[in-house]
C-alpha cells in the first residue's frame, strides 16, 4: 500500500523553549485508521494540527505523498487532507448543502463559485453519510450527532484521501459515539485514511486500528494496537489502574477499569 503521510522526527513548541513533543515518527497508509491516544494536555490535538498544517512544527517534517508539506501551497494540502474539527461553531444559518459544498474550495480558483457539478458532489457526499434529508435544513438547527456527519460529509465532498478528526466522539451520547466509530470504519473500508484523537482506549480496540500514543513521559509509541497497548502503558498513561480483558461471548478485547 502507498504511504499517504509520513511524519519524520516531528517536534513542536508553542514558545520555542518548552517542547510539547519531539521525535515523532510514523506513517499513514491509504485506507488506514490511526488513533492518537494520550493524557490531557500532552499535545494530541497539537500533533493533529501539525498534520493538517495548521501549526508549523519546530523540528522535523510532514511528507504528503512524499513531498514536504511545508513547501506545498495550502490548496494542494487541502486536496488530500480533510479536517473534522471537534466542534463546529456556526454563526450564520447556512443550509447543510451550502455548508458541505464549501468542501470544493481547494478545487476552485479564488474568484470561482461552485457550479452544478460541485453541488452534485456535495449531494453525493450527503448520500454517502445517509443524511440527504438534511440537505435544505439550516446547519444551526440539527443535532450534534448530525452536525458531526455533516462535517464528515464536507471532508468527503473535499475529495480528501486522509481525514483528520479531533475527538470526533467528544460531544456525543454513547449511541452516537458508536455510530461515528462505525462511520470511521466504513470510511476506511472505502479507502479513506482516518487519523483521530480520542480519550477512550476502548475505541482503539473497537476500531481494531493502529494506534499512536504519547505517554505521560512524552514518549511516542506507534503500531498496531496489539503491539502497543498493554495494561502497564494504559495504567501509567492515565494514572489509574486499567485492565485489558478478552470478553467471552463478544470475542474481543476491552479496556476497562477494574473498579474505582
Amino acid at each position, binding site marked *: 500500500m502507498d504511504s499517504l503521510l509520513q511524519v519524520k522526527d516531528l517536534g513542536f513548541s508553542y514558545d520555542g523553549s518548552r517542547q510539547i513533543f519531539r521525535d515523532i515518527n510514523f506513517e499513514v497508509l491509504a485506507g488506514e485508521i490511526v488513533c492518537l491516544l494520550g493524557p490531557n494536555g500532552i499535545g494530541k490535538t497539537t500533533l493533529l494540527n501539525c498534520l493538517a498544517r495548521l501549526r508549523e512544527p519546530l523540528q522535523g517534517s510532514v511528507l504528503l505523498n512524499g513531498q514536504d508539506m511545508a513547501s506545498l501551497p*495550502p490548496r494542494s494540502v487541502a486536496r488530500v*487532507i480533510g479536517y473534522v*474539527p471537534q466542534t463546529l461553531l456556526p454563526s450564520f444559518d*447556512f443550509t447543510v448543502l*451550502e455548508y458541505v459544498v464549501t468542501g470544493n474550495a481547494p478545487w476552485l480558483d479564488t*474568484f470561482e*463559485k461552485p457550479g452544478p457539478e460541485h453541488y452534485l458532489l456535495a449531494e453525493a457526499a450527503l448520500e454517502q453519510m445517509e443524511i440527504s434529508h438534511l440537505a435544505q435544513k439550516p446547519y444551526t438547527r440539527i443535532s450534534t450527532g448530525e452536525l458531526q456527519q455533516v462535517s464528515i460529509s464536507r471532508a468527503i465532498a473535499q475529495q480528501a484521501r486522509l481525514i483528520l478528526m479531533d475527538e470526533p466522539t467528544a460531544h456525543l451520547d454513547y449511541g452516537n459515539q458508536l455510530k461515528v466509530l462505525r462511520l470511521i470504519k466504513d470510511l476506511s473500508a472505502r479507502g479513506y485514511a482516518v487519523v483521530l484523537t480520542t480519550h477512550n482506549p476502548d475505541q482503539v480496540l473497537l476500531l481494531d486500528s493502529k494506534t499512536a500514543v504519547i505517554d505521560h513521559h512524552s514518549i511516542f509509541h506507534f503500531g498496531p494496537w496489539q503491539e502497543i497497548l498493554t495494561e502497564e502503558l494504559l495504567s501509567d498513561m492515565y494514572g489509574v489502574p486499567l485492565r485489558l480483558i478478552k470478553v467471552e461471548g463478544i470475542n474481543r478485547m476491552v479496556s476497562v477499569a477494574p473498579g474505582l
Partner: protein
Amino acid sequence: MLLLMGIFISLSLGRYSNDPSKVLNVFLSRLGMNVPVDPAMDSIVFNVRLPRVLASVMIGAMLSLAGAVYQSVFRNPLVSPDLLGVSSGAAVGASAAILLGAGLATRQIFAFAGGILAVFITSLVPRLLRNRSNMMLVLSGIIVGGFLSSVLAIMKFMAEEQTELASIVYWQLGSLATILGRELWAILPVFLVCSTLLLLLSWRINILSFGDLEARTLGVNLRQVRTIVIICASLLTASAVSISGTIGWVGLVIPHLSRLIVGSDNTRSMPLTILVGAIFMLLIDTLARTVTSVEIPLSILTGFVGAPLYALLLYKQRTRLE
C-alpha cells in the same frame, strides 16, 4: 425594477414640483424626443435631484455591502461597518477640516483619509503584537475607535459653539443635502471596483465566516482573502461616509434583512443586500428632503426606521437565536 421605479418616484418629489410627467418629459427630451420641457425642471432634475438620488442609492448599497462583509468576516451578525474605526476616523478627519475652516472638498478628503488611516492603525496593532487572530483585530478596533472618540470629543470641546460645533454635529448625523455630481464621480470607481471584487469573492466570504480553522483546512489563503475583503469593505465605508457624514443602522440592518429573505449564502445575500440597501437609502433620503420643509439629518431617520425594523427582524428570528 423596484429600484428604478423608486428612483423615478424620488426624482419626481421635491420642493419645486411634484409632477412625474414633467420629469418624464425632461428625460425624453434629453433622449432626443420632441416633447414640451420645463427648463427649470430640467435643471432641477439633472443638477439637484439626480445627483442626490444616485448618491443615496450608491451610499446605501456601499454601507450595506460593507456591513454584510464585516458581519461575515468577523462572524458576528451584530457588527456594523465601523467596527474597525472607519466612522470615528472619518469623523475626526472631517472635524479637523471643519476646525481648520476648510471647504467642503477638503472636508471630504480629510474624512476619507481619516477613515482609512483609522483602519490602517487598527490593522497594525495585531501585527505589532504578533497575534493576527480576528479577535485581536476586533479588540484593536475598539481601542482605536475609543481613542478617536476622545480625540473627537476634544475637537468638539475646542470648537466654536455656534458654527464649528454645529457643523461637526450635523456632519455626524449624515446628510446628502449638498451633494454634487462631482462627488458622485469621485466615489463611483471605488463603488464599482470594490463591489465587483467583493461579489466575486462572495463564496469565499462564506468560508471566512466559518472561522480561521475551517477556512485554512479548506486551503483558503486566509490572510490574502481576508485582507482584500477588509480593504474593500473599508474603502466602501470610508468613501460613503466621506461625502454623506456618518449614517447609522444601514450597514447593520440591511444585511440582516437580506439574509432573512434569501438565506445566509453570500453568493445570493450579498447582491440582494446591495439592492435592498440602495432602495432603503433612497427611501430614507427622499423622506429626509420631502417630509418637512427643513432637511432631516439621515441618521435620525435611519434610526427611526432602522431600529424598529431590526427589532422586527429579531422577532422573526427569535427561535433561531438560542
